[in-house]
Every structure is written in structure tokens, then in C-alpha cells.
């Protein structure tokens, strides 16, 4: 019989011990937040200095004036943007891609005519939301558009120049939006996994399991209390990371109850997987190595730091066999894309993997020897 009292007793003694161990606490809770701060700062931090922007002026001019040229030279005098001219005959998107650039401005063909006759016209601003420079470009262009709107036309008119944004090969989300689910996935993986690999092999070596087997505590109860603790830790880490993402980087995150299955199944899966690795290996050293072999591909290839879509096809296929993939993809589906039907598929796959691994861990894990 599974006893709640024993699970709670084991949970209490384990969590108190965990909280007293500053090292574990750091890696479980603080480290992922530091990663968010570091990566967030690298990819969306305030870049200073001028941004090189490719510009294409397709404006043919009107009434002896080329407003497009005027606009671009005004822009070039700003402190934030340096204009690089692209020939009007080029395909602009291809040109940007060929030059590994994401920031660009295109002035349309009838810009002068529309402007001078008071027709609404849009300047297209290319940018990659994952790049920190695109905000600067959009902001600067917006400022000069206001200036042009105010100065070159009748005072009582509505704004006639607008901004149309376009992207080159990226989705409409920012890097931080994507980074938060990724790093939550990262901490769901690493904290229970490393911890349980270590605990289970160490307890086996110093005979703590043998000792616990002499009490009424069952191995199922023992593993359950560990899973419970890592669920608590995961939820605490989740709140911390989402908080930092929102307040420090203005991340756009959808919070929904659909996140809960991932925050519960994830730690359960990786605690059990860690347990399994510690159980089937002979000593802590081997367990550590096998643990790393299992963990590292997931740490980097399951959509934690980089989107899967940016990886080559064969790696994308490989990612689909990594259990963590279904955690990060599911978190992205809920938090970023708000796509619940797809998230349900991830939950289903994850639940099956978790049940199998958990059952296997409980079965193979031995309190006593024969």
C-alpha cells in the first residue's frame, strides 16, 4: 500500500536537505534565470552605435522631386542608421538573404506621387524580430516618417506615410519569447535528471537504498516524493523565469492552465529517466557519463536555445526522438503560439513516454541485492 504519510515524510526530509544545499539550489533555480538574463541581454539588449541598413529606393520621383531620396538622405543623417544603397533592379529580399542581413528599407515606386498627392503610402521595413537591431531601425524610420508627415504636407492632414513590416525567414516572435519556454524546458530536463542520476548511483554505492529498504518506505513512495519535489522546483523556476522574461525583456507569454501538464509530466519523466540511468549503471562515475550522453543532445537539440526550425533537416528529425522536444514544443505551442490542439498532441506523446519510463525505473530499481 502506498502511504501518503511516508511520501510526505520523505518529501519533507529531502526538500529540507535540498534547500540546505546551496549548490543544488543554485543549479535548480537560479542558473536557468541567469541563462535567460545572459541570452536575453545578448540577443535583445540595447545595442549602441549605428546600424547598417540596406535600402532600395524604387521611387521614380514626381514634379522634379524624389521624396524617396530625400527621406533616405535624412535617415542617413540620423545617429542610429547608416544607409547602404541597393540598386532598384535587385530582388530586395534575396539581396538581404545573400548578404546575411535582416534589416532593410524599401521605398515604393510611386512614393513621391502618392506623397505629394496625399495618397496613403507605406515604407516597407524588413527586420528579424530575433535581432536586437530591428527595433532600432523600425523606431528610427518611424521617427522620420512623423517628421516627413508633419513638414511636407498640409497641417490638418492625417498621416499619409505608414510602415509596413516584413521579415526575412523568421517568425513574428522575438527571441526572448522563444527563449523562455526553451529554458524552462532546459531546467525541466537538467535539474531532476542530473540530480536523480547522482542520487540514485550514490545511494546505491553508499548503501543508503539498502538502509531505506529496512524501513516501511517503498521504492515507489521514494521515487514519488522525489518527483513531487522536482515538480515544486519546476513550478517555482517557471514562475521565476517567466517573471524575469516579462519584466526584464518584455516577453510576450501566454499563461494558461495547459502549461500544467508539461510542468508535471516533465519533471516526472526526467526524474524517472535519471533514476533509470543511475539504476542500470554500476557506479557513480559510469552513471555520470551515461547521464551526460543522454542529457546533452537534449540540452541543445530539443529546441532549448535555438528553434528547431533553424536546424538542418536531419537534426530536426533527430530532435523528434528526444523526449524533451515534446516539452519545449508543447511549451512553445501554449506560451508563444497559443495553439492548444497541437499542445494536446505533445501532452499525449509526453504522457506515454513518461508512463513507460517511470514504470521501467520503478521496476528495474532495486532496494536490495540478491
Amino acid at each position, binding site marked *: 500500500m502506498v502511504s501518503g504519510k511516508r511520501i510526505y515524510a520523505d518529501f519533507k*526530509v529531502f526538500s529540507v536537505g535540498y534547500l*540546505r544545499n546551496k549548490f543544488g539550489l543554485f543549479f535548480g533555480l537560479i542558473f536557468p534565470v541567469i541563462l535567460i538574463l545572459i541570452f536575453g541581454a545578448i540577443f535583445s539588449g540595447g545595442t549602441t552605435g549605428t546600424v547598417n541598413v540596406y535600402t532600395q529606393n524604387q521611387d521614380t520621383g514626381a514634379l522634379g522631386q524624389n521624396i524617396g531620396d530625400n527621406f533616405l538622405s535624412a535617415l542617413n543623417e540620423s545617429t542610429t542608421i547608416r544607409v547602404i544603397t541597393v540598386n532598384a533592379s535587385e530582388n530586395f529580399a534575396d539581396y538581404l538573404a545573400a548578404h546575411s542581413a535582416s534589416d532593410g528599407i524599401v521605398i515604393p515606386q510611386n512614393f513621391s506621387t502618392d506623397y505629394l498627392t496625399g495618397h496613403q503610402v507605406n515604407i516597407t521595413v524588413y527586420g528579424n524580430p530575433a535581432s536586437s537591431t530591428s527595433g532600432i531601425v523600425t523606431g528610427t524610420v518611424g521617427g522620420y516618417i512623423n517628421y516627413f508627415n508633419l513638414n511636407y504636407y498640409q497641417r490638418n492632414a492625417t498621416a499619409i506615410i505608414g510602415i509596413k513590416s516584413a521579415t526575412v525567414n523568421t517568425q513574428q516572435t522575438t527571441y526572448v519569447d522563444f527563449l523562455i519556454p526553451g529554458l524552462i524546458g532546459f531546467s525541466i530536463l537538467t535539474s531532476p535528471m542530473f540530480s536523480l542520476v547522482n542520487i540514485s548511483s550514490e545511494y546505491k554505492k553508499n548503501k543508503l537504498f539498502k*538502509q531505506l529498504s*529496512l524501513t516501511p518506505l517503498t521504492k515507489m513512495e521514494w521515487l514519488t516524493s522525489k518527483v513531487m519535489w522536482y515538480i515544486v522546483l519546476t513550478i517555482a523556476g517557471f514562475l521565476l523565469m517567466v517573471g524575469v522574461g516579462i519584466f526584464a525583456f518584455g516577453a510576450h507569454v501566454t499563461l494558461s492552465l495547459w502549461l500544467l501538464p508539461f510542468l508535471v509530466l516533465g519533471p516526472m519523466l526526467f526524474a524517472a529517466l535519471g533514476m533509470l540511468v543511475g539504476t542500470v549503471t554500476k557506479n557513480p562515475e559510469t552513471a555520470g557519463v551515461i547521464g551526460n550522453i543522454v542529457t546533452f543532445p537534449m540540452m541543445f537539440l530539443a529546441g532549448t536555445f535555438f528553434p528547431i526550425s533553424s536546424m538542418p533537416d536531419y537534426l530536426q528529425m533527430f530532435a523528434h526522438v528526444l523526449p524533451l522536444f515534446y516539452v519545449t514544443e508543447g511549451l512553445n505551442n501554449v506560451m508563444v503560439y497559443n495553439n492548444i490542439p497541437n499542445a494536446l498532441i505533445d501532452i499525449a506523446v509526453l504522457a506515454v513516454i513518461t508512463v513507460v519510463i517511470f514504470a521501467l525505473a520503478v521496476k528495474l530499481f532495486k532496494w*536490495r541485492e540478491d
Partner: protein
Amino acid sequence: MLPIEVTSLKKYYGDLKAVDGISFTVKQGEVFGLLGPNGAGKTTTIEMMEGLRERDGGDLKILGLDPWKNGYELHKKIGVIPQEFTFFEKTTPREAINYYANLFNVKVDADEILKMVMLEDMAKHHFDSLSGGQKQKTGLALSLVNSPELLFLDEPTTGLDPNARRAIWEVIRGLKARGKTIILTTHYLDEAQQLSDRVAIMDHGKIVAMGTTDEIIQQHGSGERLEIHGTQQLADYIKANTELQVDYNKSRGEIIIPLHKKIDALAALAAAEQSGMDWGHIQTLQDSLDDVFVKLVSEPLDEQGEAESEGKADKKRRR
């Protein structure tokens, strides 16, 4: 019903006969010492009794239960401190006791148990900051949480300094005074002698002697002997002029005469005096448990009480 009944117990690891058909019983309230060099099979035996290892043959009844099949039941009734006891690093002895109390679903007074094992001072220290002796005492404390009548102590003082060992002995004596039945393994002869009512000496998986220490000495010791410091010539002279059996130990320069009757000593001394040769320092001696142990156990112990090749066998066995 006797608390412990062991009949022809066997455990093999491949070709190695770790425990090779041993039998013994232990009475209520008795302290029973399993003595032997490392690798003699003590821990394998005690772990089979605790239900931690399955036996390969023979019969085993602990408190009337089969320890392997009814382990879960048995563990509620016994107390165990395994060899080299360890616990969660950041847990204090008091927390550990309360943790065990919750697992066993019993109410205990943690302070009383701490007092029983003389660990009150360290109640609030994390386990990893305790000394070796204090760690063992924590183990003892935990083995008492379910108020067991039967305790298994597997090498409770191995690796401890002499003061810590004596402190543990004090605790064990206290438990004995409370009427607990205790099985104790040790490779320290003095420990077995100090604490046990009866001792079984194990070697190569077999019991080579069993009884009170006095009985073992009587059965396996050489009895009283006279030792005279002198030369080989003197030894020969005594041998030629008396009916006595005379041995000579060259390296020590001792003439050794087993005394079947007290009066034999007088005859030997008279002959020595008669010889006109020099002789000094006389003493009568009796085998100690140490002497008997060395005789019975195939390989002598080194200073730590470990027999070299036995230690290797022990490692092989535990794999």
C-alpha cells in the same frame, strides 16, 4: 520460539562459498557476536538474516519469519545498523529520528533516543558535519526508532578511534541492559569479548568455533603452559630428565612446557635447577582469545584486523 534459528545456511557466489552451511541459534536477550576476518562471511550472513540477501540453501527463521519472503513484515520488528552507516548529508540526527518515526508510523521521543545513544549534543548538526563515531550513533539511534526487540549491528565500530569505540560499547551495553537481543559482527576480538554473551568465529564461510569466550578458549586453546627463558640444551636436559612434553621456541629463546597437572611445573623447575645451566624469567600462561583466533583462522589479521587476501575475496563477493 527462539528469536533466531539458522540451519545449514548457504550463500554461493559462483565458485566462492561465501557462507557454507552454518547453523546456530540465539536466545532472547542474548548478545551474539559473529567474529571473523574480513571476507569470512559475517556480513553476508547478517544480511541474509536481515532479509537484504537471498539465501542459496538452508533454513532461516528470524522472529519466526522467513526474512527474504517476509522482509517487509520483519523490518518493522527489527533494528539494523549496516556496515559503514551513512545518511542524507544535510539532515540532523533529530530530523532523521522523526523521519524514521513517520516511516514506521510510530510516536517517539527523539530526545530520549538521542540520550540513549549519547548524542544529545549533536541533535541539530547536519549529518555530514558529524564525526565517525557520531555518525554510527545516529545509525544506532535510527535502529531504535521502531523499538525493536532484535538488533543487528554490522561492524558498528570499524574505522573508529578507541574513544569512539568505547562510547559505542557503552551504548550497546545500555541496550543489552534493556533486554534487547543483539547480533553483532566484528573483527575486533576485544569487542566480541567485551560485549558478547556468546561468540561464533567464522572463517571461509564456516563457523570454526562457537560458545562463550571461556568455552572457546578451553576447547581450542592449548591450556596452561610453563615458559622458561633458556637455551636449547636446557630444553633437551629437561626433556631427558622428566616425563614432560617440552617444546623450544628458538626465536624467543623460550622453553614451553604444557601443564597437564599443576605439579608438572614443579618437576620442570626441579630439572632446570638440577641441570646447573643458566635460566631466567619463568611464567605460566594460558591462550587468550587472540591466540585461539590466530590458530583457528587460516590467515592472521594485520594491524587493522584485516586479513589481506580475505579482503580481496570480500570485494569479489560484494560485486
